Structure formats: structure tokens, C-alpha cells
């Protein structure tokens, strides 16, 4: 009862959001479809885009080709995309990846530990992290505008401390 009334009164959700300017949370997640884990620690020194996605989320599906393109173009300059998958089952994710293959790193997050650490508020959510491990930009949702902006943002960060 209180929940509905609170929602109706527009009381904002109190949460410690991960925003630009903060250090990226630690991440240690199993790889998708491969043995071993993926950690942000192991990618220190690179510009990383951590993207939370799922095959059931329409803008996520639309963002895949853009993110794959970004990863391919800038990987040799020290850029990496890490896709954290939020599908209900591994099968759902793999079926999607068969139709829309991507070349970037993929991880599973069954227990929601990574999503909670990053306090994900929308699907998709992308966190652009600089070479020193600090979050520089958060993208919530994915539109044509996001695609355009990301290219420039990644290039800017790659120039830093290269």
C-alpha cells in the first residue's frame, strides 16, 4: 500500500548511483560461453565500455552492431567493449549471438552482482571507463544520438595517457 502511494507521490528512488567521476566498481564475472572469469582489473590501462545488455531488450539489440564496430575499430589502440549479459538463460543469449555475432568480450551476471555494483538503472546501460579506471560517462538507453556521441567520447579517452 505504501509502495503505490510512495510511487504516486513521486518519491525518487534512493540509491548510490554510479555516475561520471567515480571509480568503476570492481568486476569479476564468468565469461559467456567460455571458461574463466573476466575482471576489470585485467583491463586496467585500456579504455573500457561496460555495456549491460540482454536479447529481450529492444534498444540493446539495436546497439550491438554499433558496439561491435567500435570495438573492432579501436581495439588496437587499447579500447575494449565488455558486454554483461542479463538474459534469463545462457541459451537465450547464445541463440541471439548466433544471429547477431559480436567480437567483443562477453560476461554473464546470473546473480546480479555486477548489475548491482554498477547500480544499473536502465537497459541498456553503458559505462565508459578511462585508462585509470574512472567512470567518465554513463549512457542510459541507446538511441541514434548515443551511437554518434560514443565514437567521439571513445576517441577522446584513447588520446589520454596513450
Amino acid at each position, binding site marked *: 500500500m505504501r*509502495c503505490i502511494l510512495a510511487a504516486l507521490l513521486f518519491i525518487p528512488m534512493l540509491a548510490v548511483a554510479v555516475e561520471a567521476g567515480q571509480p568503476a566498481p570492481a568486476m569479476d564475472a564468468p565469461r559467456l560461453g567460455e571458461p574463466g572469469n573476466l575482471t576489470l582489473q585485467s583491463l586496467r590501462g585500456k579504455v573500457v565500455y561496460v555495456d549491460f545488455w540482454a536479447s*529481450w531488450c529492444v534498444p540493446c539489440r539495436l546497439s550491438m552492431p554499433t558496439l561491435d564496430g567500435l570495438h573492432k575499430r579501436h581495439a588496437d589502440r587499447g579500447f575494449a567493449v565488455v558486454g554483461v549479459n*542479463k538474459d534469463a538463460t545462457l541459451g537465450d543469449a547464445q541463440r541471439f549471438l548466433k544471429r547477431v555475432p559480436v567480437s567483443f568480450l562477453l560476461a554473464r551476471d546470473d546473480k*546480479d552482482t555486477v548489475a548491482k555494483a554498477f547500480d544499473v538503472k536502465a537497459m541498456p546501460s553503458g559505462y565508459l571507463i578511462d585508462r585509470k579506471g574512472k567512470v567518465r560517462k554513463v549512457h542510459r538507453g541507446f538511441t541514434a544520438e548515443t551511437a554518434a556521441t560514443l565514437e567521439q567520447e571513445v576517441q577522446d579517452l584513447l588520446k589520454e595517457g596513450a
Partner: protein
Amino acid sequence: MKALALTLLIAVTGCANVAPYQRAHLARPDMAFESNLGVAKAMEKTFPAKEGASGGASVGGGGCGCN
């Protein structure tokens, strides 16, 4: 009757806080409230044409001379 209905509604709905990344099951096609647009439209008049009751889902649907 209306007061009871409203109370039941609020009691039943409770308090859920499903995060945006936990909506995999809710996004399933079989969790939708209606079948696809065409089937829903075609079936819209099938039962009401033979019954006294109609409506409840939407507005602006128009009538039919269902004899």
C-alpha cells in the same frame, strides 16, 4: 462496491521493486496481456456479439451492428 474494489486492488498489487535488468521473464511474449494486434482485434467482437457484456480493455473501439 467501488470502495471494496479499489481496496482489493491496492492490497493485491503489493510492493514490487524489480530492477530494469531483472525483467527477462517479464519480457517474454507469453507474459503479454494480449495476443498479437490482429488476433486481439478479430476476437474483440466474437464473444460480445453473443453476450450482454462488452469492453473493459480499451476505449475508442467503436461499435458494430452485430445481429
